[in-house]
């Protein structure tokens, strides 16, 4: 398999837009499927994985697995329906965790 540095995982075909700019795109309908794909990508030394928000919120155990490692970086991106605020909520949660209260 060719080495993949950047990947984007989404539930529907709109994720193929990322393919046009050189990000490898993968369709995963369910979180379980996405989990397998992420495992393969991580084993293949993938650096950054952009994961659609709808999948991201249901994959806490997968994210936990890579939390302590610097790579792969897995971050949520909004889908075609627009942002559900997952990314911003994550930032707020981090502040809460680190400072003890949300000061942003």
């Amino acid at each position, binding site marked *: 398999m060719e080495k993949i540095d950047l990947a984007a995982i989404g539930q529907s075909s*709109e994720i193929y*837009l990322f393919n046009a700019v050189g990000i490898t795109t993968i369709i995963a309908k369910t979180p379980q499927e996405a989990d397998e794909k992420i495992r393969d990508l991580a084993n293949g030394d993938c650096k950054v994985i952009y994961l659609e928000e709808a999948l991201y919120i249901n994959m806490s155990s997968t994210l936990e697995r890579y939390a302590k490692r610097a790579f792969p970086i897995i971050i949520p991106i909004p889908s075609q329906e627009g*942002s559900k605020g997952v990314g911003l909520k994550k*930032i707020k949660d*981090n502040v809460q965790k*680190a400072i003890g209260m949300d000061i*942003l």
Partner: protein
Amino acid sequence: MALMNVNPTRMELSKLKAGLATSQRGHKLLKDKQDEMIRQFMLIIRENQSLRKEIEDELAAIMKKFSTAQLTMSYAGLMEALMVPSKSVEVTVATKNIMSIKTPTVQVANSEGDIDLTYGFAFTPSDLDGAILSLSRLLPKLLKLAELEKTCDMLAVDIEKTRRRVNAIEYIMIPDYEETIHFVNQKLDESDRSATIRLMKAKSLILAKEETERARRAKELAAATE
């Protein structure tokens, strides 16, 4: 708070005092580490927040263009246009050390401005071109966002861990040491006092015995001289 299970001896007392000094020094160091991590974290998280908002807005605009393109052309045609990447992105990655946490850095290795579109323009709408060009311009920011978010995640976890350690030392370990040292000091003082009292008692007993002996001899001497 609880007393430690130690014998109240001078040896233990000096060990406990050394332990207390070490934990106070450790507490100060960890507290400093925590303060510095929070300072760095605040700098990064603000940048992360503004970048995240910017990217979500831009991605929403790109997706809107893409939806319009999807409506005006067939699925097969769209897939055909998108399946050939216009460039392959290569990234260089490294790790940066922030307060002994290894955080990632990501950079595009081959960034040469705008990309060339790889499909014919005859059957594709201009919205698609716009969406792809905007997304390719957004790519460095997307990588920066990944780097910042991961750094924030790792820092947040480590700050929480350090805070727990600082609190454990400050509110459990140091008070335990202090209480135990106080206890051992009191025990030693008590045994000192009891040793002194024992000596005083022994001395008074001996003196009393000597006194009666002297009185008896004086009596005998008086009887002998009569």
